[in-house]
């Protein structure tokens, strides 16, 4: 019994895929059925030889073994349909002999299981684009599919935000909105420009912060600013919880499959073939991938062997060279940050309404995009010189690109925050300017709106970039390669490849922009949803029409961890920016928090209304004493988890040993069984 329990835990540790626990609990029997099903004697005689007595006995024995656990659905047995039928007939006989209560219970179990499956299937059927993604998977393998699944996940996330925003921010404001003070006629002629820059008419609409003024809904604990705050905070908390959960689940997988148990090559061979591949072209490509990857791994092994034989002088030379190259990378990064800074500077020096100015307003996003396109490719080249193993090269490029993406965005935000404002954080010890900008031009400018506008522009620009790269770069290139395959240019350019890493980084980048901007541009999730929807079709077009599958294999499990991890980094970055912003802006200017000293003042009014006991509870919760208790409790919980993790690791080791024992036992039994069978056959 104890042994069985251990097996159950083992199975759980090993596979998240084993769908329900009642399946894994039968794993003991499974191994046995497998052994018996795989015996050479059973394999050579299949059914049908009814006259053969040995075979008949054999068959009965096998069926007896299989009938062991009637709770397992028949389709879970690895035998052919006719055998399943035979087994079921036997079970029917059993069913008659057992009580009606048992039979009813058993049938109920089946119905429940079936219902659960149906519900699960119906829910998964609701997921959009299943067939398209399946087709993409068939043609381009699992890696590209991971990108599209990630895109779909982000789309779902943004839709959820839309619902939250709609419920807590938009509807209350629209319903309880006071009389609109501005009745000026919007200038419709400049609408196209406003759409891109977010100025003019758009500034007065629900897109931006200043629209959400305190309306007629003005209770102490139920007013629009409070609802606004609630919506934003719930968005942030929800995303943190969801992302952490997804990252941790993926991390668990990759930890289990990672270096701690070195069976990487076995996976690549045993689960190397993607059986959903249909076209012969994709099949030969897949074979190329597999071959390349196996060769890469073997090379890596040889590389490690070579590293061990390196002499000291070689080491020193290599380290110096690496330091030099890293300096070069740093220089490139700094240079690109400077470029971004200049772009922002130029943009902010332009204040009139001319067309050049509209172009200039897009200068920072354009610079960032160009940098983000060019530098990762340079990094790939640089990492080739560093004499690292191939995996490290790939990861290094990836890490540098991630750093570049997030850092360039944060630099952009930082300089934007610092550039023309008197925010004391940026002044590095200079005397603080006492004149607040909101005081001298608060009628014209709303700082929050300005910030929201920036994020709006970045979002719109990401969309434009998607359009541009698909229809002005990728498609003409494919066209050229297809029409003039022999020309020099076509041979230099070669086929397009769908670079999963860069595309995912793009998604992460724009999602970060959304999180940063949502507080000041509450309709950003809706815009973002629309953008992702369009982006899906653009990318689908790019992949299906313009791309040849990439040469480097991408593993789903490990890569999706990385995707979510970068997304998490982006989220943390945006939370930091939001906190800085909330402290930076004087909330008196415009928007829902007009008239309060800080954003969180709105909750204070509500707190005052509460009965005494609740007030004292809240003040206790926010006091140091409670924080201390909380930290202590967390320490205790963490310690227990760590020790449990250690115990689990020990159990895994022990179970590994046990598996060795079990398999040798089985070997022995199988040998015994076959000798008995032989002895029985001999008298005949």
């Amino acid at each position, binding site marked *: 019994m104890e042994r069985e329990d251990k097996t159950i835990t083992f*199975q759980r540790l*090993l*596979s998240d*895929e*084993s*769908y329900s626990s009642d*399946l894994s609990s039968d794993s003991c029997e499974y191994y046995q059925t*497998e*052994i018996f099903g*795989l015996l*050479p004697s059973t394999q050579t005689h*299949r*059914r049908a*030889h009814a006259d053969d007595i040995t075979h008949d006995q054999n068959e009965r024995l096998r069926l007896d073994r299989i009938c062991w656990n009637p709770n397992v659905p*028949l*389709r*879970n047995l*690895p035998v*052919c*349909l006719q055998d399943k*039928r035979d087994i*079921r007939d036997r079970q029917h006989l059993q069913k008659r002999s057992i009580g009606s209560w048992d039979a009813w219970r058993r049938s109920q179990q089946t119905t429940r299981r079936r219902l659960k499956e149906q519900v699960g*299937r119906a829910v998964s059927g609701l997921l959009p684009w299943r067939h398209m993604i399946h087709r993409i998977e068939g043609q381009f393998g*699992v890696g590209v599919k991971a990108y599209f699944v990630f895109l779909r996940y982000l789309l779902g996330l943004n839709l959820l935000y839309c619902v939250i925003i709609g419920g807590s921010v938009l509807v209350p404001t629209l319903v309880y909105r006071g009389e609109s003070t501005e009745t000026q006629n919007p200038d419709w002629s400049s609408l196209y420009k406003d759409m891109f820059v977010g100025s003019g008419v758009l500034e007065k609409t629900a897109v931006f912060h200043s629209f959400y003024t305190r309306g007629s809904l003005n209770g102490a604990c139920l007013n629009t600013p409070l609802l606004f705050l609630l919506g934003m905070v719930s968005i942030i908390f929800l995303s943190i919880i969801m992302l952490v959960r997804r990252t941790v689940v993926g991390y668990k997988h*990759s930890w*289990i*499959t990672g270096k701690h*148990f*070195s*069976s*990487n*090559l*076995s*996976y690549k061979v*045993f*689960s190397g*073939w993607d*059986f*959903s*591949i*249909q*076209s*012969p072209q*994709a099949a*030969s490509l897949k*074979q190329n991938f*597999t*071959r390349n990857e*196996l*060769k890469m791994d*073997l090379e890596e*092994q040889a590389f490690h062997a070579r590293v061990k034989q390196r002499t000291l002088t070689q080491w020193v030379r290599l380290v110096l060279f690496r330091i030099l190259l890293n300096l070069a990378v740093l220089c490139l990064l700094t240079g690109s940050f400077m470029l971004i800074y200049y772009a922002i500077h130029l943009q902010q020096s332009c204040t009139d309404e001319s067309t050049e100015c509209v172009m200039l307003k897009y200068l920072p996003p354009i610079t960032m995009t160009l940098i983000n396109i060019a530098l990762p490719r340079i990094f790939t080249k640089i990492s080739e010189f560093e004499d690292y193993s191939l995996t490290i090269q790939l990861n290094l490029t990836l890490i540098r690109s991630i750093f570049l993406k997030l850092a360039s965005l944060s630099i952009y935000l930082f300089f934007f925050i610092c550039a023309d404002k008197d925010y004391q954080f940026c002044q590095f010890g200079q005397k603080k300017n006492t004149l607040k900008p909101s005081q001298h031009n608060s009628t014209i400018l709303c700082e929050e709106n300005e910030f929201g506008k920036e994020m709006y522009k970045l979002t719109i620009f990401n969309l434009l970039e998607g359009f541009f790269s698909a229809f002005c770069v990728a498609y003409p290139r494919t066209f050229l390669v297809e029409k003039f395959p022999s020309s020099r240019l076509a041979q230099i350019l070669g086929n397009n490849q769908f670079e999963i890493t860069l595309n995912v980084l793009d998604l992460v980048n724009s999602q970060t922009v959304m999180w940063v901007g949502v507080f000041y541009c509450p309709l950003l999730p809706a815009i973002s949803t629309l953008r992702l929807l369009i982006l899906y079709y653009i990318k689908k077009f790019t992949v299906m029409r313009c791309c040849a599958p990439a040469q480097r294999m991408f*593993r*789903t*499990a490990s890569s999706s961890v990385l995707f979510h991890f970068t997304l998490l980094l982006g989220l943390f970055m945006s939370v930091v920016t939001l906190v800085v912003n909330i402290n930076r802006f004087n909330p008196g200017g415009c928007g829902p928090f007009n008239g309060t000293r800080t954003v969180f003042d709105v909750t204070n009014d509500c707190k005052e209304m509460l009965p005494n006991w609740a007030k004292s509870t809240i003040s206790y919760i926010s006091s140091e004493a409670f924080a201390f208790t909380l930290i202590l409790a967390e320490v205790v919980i963490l310690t227990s988890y760590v020790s449990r993790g250690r115990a689990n690791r020990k159990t895994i080791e022990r179970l*590994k040993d046990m*598996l*060795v024992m079990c*398999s040798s036992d089985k*070997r022995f039994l199988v040998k015994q069984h076959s000798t008995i069978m032989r002895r029985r056959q001999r008298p005949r």
Partner: protein
Amino acid sequence: MGGTASKLPKELLSEYQELTFLTKQEILLAHKRFSELQGRENGPYSSRVSMEKILTLPELKSNPFRKRICHVFSTSDLRDGSLTFEDFLDLLSAFSDSATLEIKSHYAFRIFDFDDDGTLDGRDLEKLVNCLTGETDDTRLTAEEMRQLISNILEESDIDKDGTVNPSEFQHVISRSPDFVSSFKIVL
């Protein structure tokens, strides 16, 4: 869909649903495809379709393991890899989305076990790797690489160190491979 529904008797359909992982629609689609292969409508459910015909299915055509798949799922006494409709359903069920890891790893093992002896030995692994990388001389790994690879695989997954990978060792490895369930899939 309504036209094809009438061809399969209702009780048979529900029985198939019970015994396989396939949904009603999938079974009907499978029946349609199978009777197209058969060439005549309403064939008896035990009549066989030869392996050559099965292999013309686009889902199997470019699979390097296609012959092994047919052999494993065939219940023919002649061992010629021909399939009845029920064998075909068995095949689709094992490769369906909702089949369990246990089922999938069981059949994967049998597909990879080229000589049907119940264990994966060095020769099986060599054939397996050749299928993965392509069979021709210029796509194959070199003999040295192959030797290194096979010794690596055995080192990693041959727990009891007897020189072969047995079913439980195989399942042990497979159950930790997160890509396996998603890649061991054929959908009509």
